[in-house]
């Protein structure tokens, strides 16, 4: 990957240059975060002209490495005010890597109120007027259809949906997947940054692209084989994710008493059977038709944790129907019907909002009296209204913290302005330390992966006790930052944590691709450096340790059924980033 593309939306100038030396060895999150720290004014307004949006495939993207098709998007977040990396599946990462594109940077801002499409081919980058039909509230599903008709069925597409056009803080960037459905760089409002630059869509035409060059093909092939086996031999891939999707976690986290319910008032629900992964699997199987229990979100995915969920007649409603979305609407907002949740999930994809932020904002709005508890029909109406948008739709798409302020609440489950996801930190304490300290704002995926053998840090963790949790949260964030830089899906975690051969194979693939000789220690150092860079940006943007705190109500409201409070002291929390 030797091209570094800059698109200046102020003067519509495009430059296709060589990759700057300092970014040559970086990919994915390592590249986006270093770039944002280098070039984005930390105190800038995220929706102003000084913010920059960068899109980068991972180090292994475009190769035959299993599960390497994730794409990183970075900028200063309009939701949190921090640095942000949000990543996604879809087809674009593999396409960009095969085209030799290391990164696309979108900077500046047009003076005119007019939206554009950036079209990228092997030969050129062109800025065109956006087709009128995809503007002013057109849903993402329809917009993809229109853009494919105009630019070709096989093009990759990134979209600022209606929520992005209206620069809502929950707006995501939607990416076309292999079947022209939608995957999202969900968290942190990066769709609003794209919308602020008046870029409605990026179209990627990889006609003429060559396979990604591999320095040592035989070594690469051998390592990829070992890596694939490490993933597929593990029960998580073989019988967990592929059969039940991430929604398998509803029953498990509910049983553990860590499933936040009714705006984080409880840790367990009674209607878990309505919304569990097991029920989803049985429903898709029973309905038949277009339903698929297992599906890959990007080319080269072998774990296939996605699925196609259908209506009663077997017609497709939504895919990538994730645990966090189902938890947010099903437990936190108490919507007890999985079909209603599926239609809301589809609507969120269609308008282009983060399903976690929106679901938690909805639950907070229910506590604030704006929406009746459990009213799925009303929630669907509000999400659809984000395409207009109505004032209530704007408030919800403003994110959980905005809703909390509008409703005058103190029970607002956010860290650095971002909604806490589906694992209550009072009964799963290690996750709480990650929510508190990650530079991203509350984010479960910031502490999702580990480099090397898990037993070194996690053999005896008790979810309710403090012992070992600081080391756990630190190791997980370092490992995640490194894996996020490879273009790998974070679900490779179990294949590298439980199988030392799998971890070595991951390093061997990188070495074989680039003809280098990284060690496990180098990979750890990469993760550490990414976190330090992100932390540095946040510090320059005005963030201190005082922002690394969970919501105060969690310190004095015990969470049933274990009746635990958040009891880490500020000094203990601050230990996580002492490395």
């Amino acid at each position, binding site marked *: 990957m030797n091209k570094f593309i800059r698109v200046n939306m102020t003067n519509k100038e495009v430059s296709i240059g060589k990759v700057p030396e300092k970014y040559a060895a970086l990919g994915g999150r390592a590249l986006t975060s270093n770039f944002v720290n280098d070039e984005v004014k930390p105190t800038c307004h995220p929706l102003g002209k000084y913010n920059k949006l960068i899109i980068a495939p991972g180090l292994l993207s475009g190769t035959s490495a299993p599960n390497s098709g994730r794409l990183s998007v970075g900028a200063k977040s309009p939701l949190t005010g921090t640095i942000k990396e949000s990543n996604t599946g879809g087809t674009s990462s593999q396409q960009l890597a095969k085209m030799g594109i290391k990164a696309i940077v979108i900077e500046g801002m047009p003076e005119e109120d007019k939206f554009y499409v950036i079209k990228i081919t092997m030969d050129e980058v062109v800025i065109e007027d956006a087709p009128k039909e995809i503007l002013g509230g057109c849903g993402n599903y329809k917009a993809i259809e229109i853009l494919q008709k105009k630019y070709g069925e096989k093009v990759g597409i990134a979209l600022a949906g209606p929520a992005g056009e209206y620069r809502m803080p929950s707006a995501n960037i939607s990416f076309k997947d292999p079947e022209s459905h939608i995957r999202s760089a969900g968290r942190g409002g990066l769709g609003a940054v794209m919308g602020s630059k008046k870029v409605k869509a990026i179209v990627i035409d990889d006609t003429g692209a060559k396979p990604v060059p591999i320095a040592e093909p035989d070594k690469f092939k051998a390592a990829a084989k070992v890596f694939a086996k490490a993933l597929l031999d593990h029960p*998580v891939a073989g*019988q*967990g994710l592929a059969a039940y999707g991430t929604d*398998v976690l509803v029953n498990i986290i509910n049983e*553990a008493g860590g499933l936040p319910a009714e705006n984080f008032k409880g840790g367990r629900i009674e209607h878990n*059977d309505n919304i569990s992964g097991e029920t989803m699997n049985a429903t898709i199987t029973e309905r038949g038709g277009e339903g698929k229990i297992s599906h890959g979100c990007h080319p080269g995915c072998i774990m296939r944790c996605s699925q196609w969920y259908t209506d009663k007649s077997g017609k497709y409603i939504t895919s990538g129907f994730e645990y966090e979305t189902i938890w947010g609407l099903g437990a936190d907002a108490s919507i007890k019907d999985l079909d209603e949740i599926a239609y809301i999930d589809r609507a969120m994809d269609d308008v282009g909002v983060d399903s976690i932020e929106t679901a938690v904002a909805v639950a907070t709005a229910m506590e604030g009296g704006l929406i009746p508890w459990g009213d799925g029909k009303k929630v669907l109406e509000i999400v659809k209204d984000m395409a207009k948008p109505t004032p209530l739709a704007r408030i919800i798409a403003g994110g959980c913290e905005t809703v909390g302020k509008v409703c005058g609440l103190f029970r607002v489950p956010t860290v650095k302005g971002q909604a806490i996801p589906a694992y209550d930190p009072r009964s799963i304490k290690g*996750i709480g330390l990650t929510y508190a300290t990650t530079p991203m704002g509350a984010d479960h995926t910031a502490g999702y992966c580990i480099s090397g053998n898990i037993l070194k840090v996690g053999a005896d*963790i008790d979810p309710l006790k403090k012992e070992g949790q600081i080391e756990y949260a630190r190791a997980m964030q370092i490992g995640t930052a490194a894996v996020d830089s490879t273009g790998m899906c974070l679900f490779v975690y179990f294949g590298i*944590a439980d199988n030392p051969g799998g971890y070595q194979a991951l390093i061997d693939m990188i070495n074989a691709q680039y003809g280098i000789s990284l060690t496990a220690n180098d990979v750890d150092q990469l993760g550490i450096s990414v976190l330090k860079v992100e932390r540095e940006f946040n510090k320059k943007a005005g963030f201190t340790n005082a922002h690394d705190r969970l919501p105060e109500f969690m310190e004095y409201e015990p969470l049933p059924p274990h009746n635990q409070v958040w009891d880490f002291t500020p000094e203990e929390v601050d230990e996580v980033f002492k490395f």
Partner: protein
Amino acid sequence: MIKNKQIELRGFLQLDAFLRKSFGKPPYFIPADSPLTGRELANNLSIPVEEIEVIFINGFVHELDAVINPGDRVAFLPPGCPGPYRIALGFYGKNQDNPANFKIKKKEDKI
């Protein structure tokens, strides 16, 4: 509602469908006069122990041979729970001696 002479039981992943076949909709209330281990409970219900990675007892992860008392809430969890929750919930202190872990079964071997 769980009574003192009963165990409130659930099964997750493929054990959800397995238990539904015998008992219908969960949860199941299994008569129990005295303490027994997870392994004994599984054997009593003809649940293959190689399908169980860990068990939940009253919301906490335990090894298969942990003791269950009448009145407890229990869930059987097969290998296959994804994510860092395997660490955060304490699986790794409980599953290391269990041969059910870290291996995938052939399709025909599955229940």
